[in-house]
């Protein structure tokens, strides 16, 4: 059986999708770690293990993401924006604006009715506008990043963060904690600050509906809620929003090898 593989080598997590013709796709994810090349090979191995396929059944591998060039066994490399567009379009054909909250950047891009990227903007070099700020604040609070979104939803009085800089946000969070500000208010405040930055980016690009939120940040219910509030519009979130680039990469690999629909 012919199979293709999409690998999204993110700076925080690697995500992989294996698609074999005529069968369900399988997925795998794990932390990227310090050795991208080794992690990519691990993802390849795990995908084969889960699917019960052998390496010689794979006819094409397409890599994307921050460390895409470290995926030495890939046949093709595409930008994560191109892969996200394909992945999101397959799930939501009505999507025209995509917000991708990743570890190093938040990205906003528009796509046409065929899933082709039209234009894009990235948050600046400072990680203050990306998912990294949530990780840092989680660390300050001695919590797991997966927990902070739920906790933030309990807030009655979100704190106003006066900065978008991740270093300043960290010290501001420490000061507020010392003042006795409840954790949920502090977390709701940081989610709101990040949402405001993402909204500015989206406004700068120009928002066209439907809007879809993807990336690791989209797994955070606190961010989804505040982003909807700040943007004042509905935002669609797919199941497994962090997998859409890998999914798109697999679809793109499939189209290069004339696969039928997944």
């Amino acid at each position, binding site marked *: 059986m012919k199979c293709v593989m999409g690998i999204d080598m993110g700076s925080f997590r690697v995500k992989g999708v294996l698609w074999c013709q005529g069968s369900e796709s399988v997925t795998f994810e794990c932390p990227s770690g310090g050795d991208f090349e080794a992690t990519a090979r691990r993802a390849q191995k795990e995908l084969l293990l889960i699917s019960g396929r052998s390496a010689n059944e794979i006819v094409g591998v397409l890599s994307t993401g*921050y460390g895409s060039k470290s995926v*030495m066994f890939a046949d093709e490399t595409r*930008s994560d*924006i191109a892969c996200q567009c394909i992945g999101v379009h397959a799930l939501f054909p009505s999507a025209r604006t995509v917000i991708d909250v990743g570890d190093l950047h938040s990205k906003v891009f528009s796509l*046409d*009715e*065929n899933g*082709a990227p039209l234009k*894009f903007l*990235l948050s600046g070099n400072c990680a203050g506008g990306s998912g990294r700020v949530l990780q840092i604040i989680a660390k300050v609070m001695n919590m797991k990043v997966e927990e902070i979104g739920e906790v933030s939803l309990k807030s009655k009085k979100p704190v106003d963060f006066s900065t978008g800089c991740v270093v300043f946000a960290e010290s501001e969070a420490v000061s507020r904690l010392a003042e006795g500000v409840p954790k949920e208010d502090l977390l709701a405040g940081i989610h709101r600050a990040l949402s405001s930055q993402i909204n500015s980016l989206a406004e700068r690009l120009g928002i066209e509906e439907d809007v879809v939120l993807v990336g690791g940040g989209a797994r955070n219910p606190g961010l989804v809620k505040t982003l909807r509030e700040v943007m004042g519009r509905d935002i669609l979130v797919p199941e497994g929003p962090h997998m859409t680039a890998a999914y798109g990469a697999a679809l793109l690999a499939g189209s290069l090898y004339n696969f039928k629909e997944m």
Partner: protein
Amino acid sequence: MAEQKKKHKKRRTATRAAASIGPMVKEFIAGTVRAQREGAQKLAYSFIVCHHEEILRAMDVLPIWTENFAGVCGAKRDAERFLQRAESLGFSRSLCTYALCGLGFDHWREELGEMPPDAPWGGQARPDFMISTGQILCDPRAKWYQAAQQYMPDVPIYNIDLPYPLYHPDRDHREELPYYHKYIVEELKGLIAFVEEQTGKKMDYERLWERVRLSDKTWNLIEATYDLRSAIPCPMGTGDAMNTMVPINFMMATQDAYDFFLNLKQELEEKIKKKEGVVENEKYRLLWGGGLPSWFALGDFNYFNSKGAVFPAETTYRMVAPIAEMNIPKTDDPVEHLAWRWLGYWTFWYDKARQRKGGEPDVERLINYIERYKIDGVVMHEAFSCRTWHVGLIWQLHQLAKIYKPIPVLRLGKDGNKTQAWRENPSLVLESDIIDITSYSEVDTRNKIDAFIDTLESVAKSRVD
């Protein structure tokens, strides 16, 4: 699978002319240090785009282009120690980093009484006087030398103010030109008097006319040379133009500048004849639509090239326009001519902009280049420390997208039918700085370029013409 299939793309070489610029600048900087030692010529700190090169050259004054030296420090990735010194003096990193680099260098040189250790290309010579400018292009240029004077209190400054009428869609700027002209002539005459005082020489106006005519001739030659870049494949890109800007901006009013462009024109004509392009398989033609480059990252132009993209045109540093199209009034006074040429340059796109609904001169220039050079996409660079120029770039892109949609595509309507529509050129905004390398991430920049190339590809596929 394609294990170890990836291969390194060969780096394209620059034009011979562009490759000759590095040694030329190095010799120029060394020449100013030599001249200072010998004391034969007066040296003046100067800024580019002030239309005073003819005056300086006619009076045998050797300009020291301080922005150029800061750029050299940046290109050699040796600006940080001067930036840090300026910071230690209390200047903020958010100020113009050219100015910071220059101030840090000046302070160090004055403190030592000699060049700082391992000064890039021998270092920047101490000036006899400084010519700052309050012209609209850049605000720190009025303050930079005032700050430098703290370390060189014996070095006098002349500040030259060169305004031009602002664009208004419903007002003919020609009505205001005489007033501006009169003012600029007085400013230039003031500069001549200042230089006469500093050098102890009187201006030879015949000699000045010779320099002015040489510049005019060079302007026209540059236009003709750069127009050759509209050829497909493109024989010279913006990466090279960031070198060939040197004769335009630092050597104007010299025979060397004219000869340089004669040689470049000939080289480009040969390349066109041989169908020799910057890239082997030219896929995308891009416009560098604004912003100074990151001097430490000019290799990014080669990265674009490795993706089949080439830059046939740029607005940056192309500080010339066709003289014949400016309708410069006839005059016997070279100073009056300089003032008219200044106004002609800065208002060059005004009439054309008025002819388009929502038009604006800077945007009109982009549109003109997009059409003339058959451009597929626009790239700009927003340098955080260069506020005056870079702050309007995003607005220009928005305005361009609003009023100019040259790409025919099919759009799927809600009724399921496809209709023809028009879309704008894709655009990319790079973010970093002119010389502050701490603002730059090569990985991020190249990821952005990759995404932009994918966008260009998808737009090319969606074209229906």
